[in-house]
């Protein structure tokens, strides 16, 4: 196995007494697509900032491309592409100039940056907007421009913090397609997300993070197999009747999870569980059978839902 591009060992970041990141360890292999899945405030962004060499750790060890970010910040950052949670495009510059100027920040020669900027505009499907003002772009376009900008220095690792948060479904799918292409080309991706579908689509391997700690680690499918049943039956009885219905449902499927608005029945077969529910004389207002997802893994591990 090739040497990992990121090695975190017992990585900790404290703000006064609060530990935003509380002793997490992980490795990322070159070419791998690695995800940090967790709710808001889990410490994902703080971890990303440390990996991006813009935040120093309180304790533990961190090596990015074999270097210590505390000592080699600029050298590490020259090999990274960063897509922050909130776009920080240069609104005083036009679309293509954003790429040119950003390339210059890395000290790259103009001719090389100009060629690369045109390729990246093509990749981000923004060639026809090269001269547009940044503020006139849609949310999805801004996001794609931010990703194009992060690629200007041909980085060895691309860090994406919540890449599709706040985008409409269509814009998300376009973005996923672009990221998937990068992955196919062998770019190492590290991304945080609180969307399970995003994690399932893009990540080869992920860690589930909650309250600054790693709750589980593995491939998405393996995590689901390990921590959840094959299928899930979701039934709704109306908010004040869920609790009562749950008592009657005891024993149906492998396990029950009662949420404020619905009951989740974890079972090998959702359809068979539904038959059992009706046999017991209950008539749910709505019912839905689906495959288990990372959302269920998270719920199982933390007792909470990802998007609250």
């Amino acid at each position, binding site marked *: 196995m090739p040497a990992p591009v990121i090695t975190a060992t017992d990585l900790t970041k404290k703000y006064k007494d609060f530990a935003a990141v509380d002793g997490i360890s992980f490795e990322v292999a070159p070419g791998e697509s690695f995800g940090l899945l967790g709710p808001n405030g889990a410490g994902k962004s703080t971890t990303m900032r440390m990996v991006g060499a813009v935040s120093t750790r309180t304790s533990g060890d961190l090596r990015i491309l074999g270097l210590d970010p505390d*000592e080699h910040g600029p050298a590490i950052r020259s090999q990274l592409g960063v897509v922050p949670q909130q776009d920080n495009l*240069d609104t005083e510059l036009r679309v293509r100039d954003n790429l040119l100027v950003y390339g210059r920040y*890395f000290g790259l020669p103009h001719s090389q940056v100009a060629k690369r900027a045109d390729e990246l505009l093509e990749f981000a499907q923004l060639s026809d907007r090269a001269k547009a003002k940044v503020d006139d772009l849609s949310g999805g376009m801004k996001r794609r421009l931010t990703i194009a900008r992060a690629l200007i220095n041909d980085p060895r690792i691309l860090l994406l913090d919540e890449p599709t948060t706040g985008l409409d479904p269509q814009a998300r799918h376009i973005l996923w397609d672009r990221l998937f292409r990068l992955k196919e080309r062998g770019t190492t991706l590290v991304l945080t997300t609180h969307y399970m579908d995003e994690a399932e689509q893009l990540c080869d391997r992920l860690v589930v993070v909650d309250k600054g700690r790693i709750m589980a680690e593995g491939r998405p499918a393996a995590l689901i197999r390990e921590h959840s049943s094959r299928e899930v039956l979701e039934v709704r009885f109306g908010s004040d009747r869920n609790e009562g219905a749950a008592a009657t449902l005891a024993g149906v499927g492998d396990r029950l999870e009662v949420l404020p608005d619905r009951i989740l029945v974890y079972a090998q077969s959702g359809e068979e569980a539904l038959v059992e529910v009706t046999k017991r004389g209950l008539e749910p207002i709505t019912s839905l059978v689906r495959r288990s997802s990372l959302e269920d893994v998270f719920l199982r591990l933390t007792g909470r839902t990802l998007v609250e």
Partner: protein
Amino acid sequence: MTADLRTDTQHRTGGVRALYSGNARAVVARGLLATRSTNWIIVLTGVFEPVFYLLALGIGLGSYIGGVTDTQGQPIPYAAYIAPALLAVSAMNGAIYDSTWNVFFKMHFGKLYQGMLATSLGPLDVALGEISLALLRGAAYGTTFLLVMQALGLNLSWTALLALPAILLIAFGFASLGMGITSYMKTFQQMDWIAFVLLPMFLFSATFYPLTVYPEPIQWVVQALPLWHGVELVRGLTTGAIGPAMLVHVGYYLVMVAVGLVFTTRRLRALFLD
């Protein structure tokens, strides 16, 4: 607090390598491109303010005022007395405008520095680049004003040519300290304090009349302020009253540049590379 800072520096052993990539010119290039494409008209308007003062007070009011002397006691016209002061002020204004309000917006709203510091740029690159931009603007204002003075016959000696490097130094000092101070500002109200300090400094730094009108303790206060040193330095050069005291003025600005750079760099690191 001091203890915190100390552990902080010990923790970061990267030294200059972690702060500086020798690429401040990329920050300057970005600033010039942004100015060209968005706000060059606003930049232009700043040139006129000291010219208006010169016309109103120097030429207008000045025709009623006599008996003014240069720093070595030679009688000179009133307009020639206040013009170098206004020259120093124009360099200061240009530098301050760019290094305070512009920096404040980039820091808190544009997230520009966050983006820059995610690249191989270090905080010292950003500080040097932004301060250079402010310096350029101060120099542009100053040069324009110096040409106006020449046209009005207010440069009394060939040494007025040396006022050019002098206003560069003045602009560098104010740009550097201005950005350092701005980096500590969090709200608009705090930013207003800068204007609150600048106005009296502009009016009372021996700009419009000699320092000797003040009682001695007040003179000390004025002599501690940066603008007074700028005014005296430039006035000596444009009127041809050269003296060793000028070295003190130059020294004052060199210290100001150094202090501003250290504070700005330290603060950018604390804000964006915590």
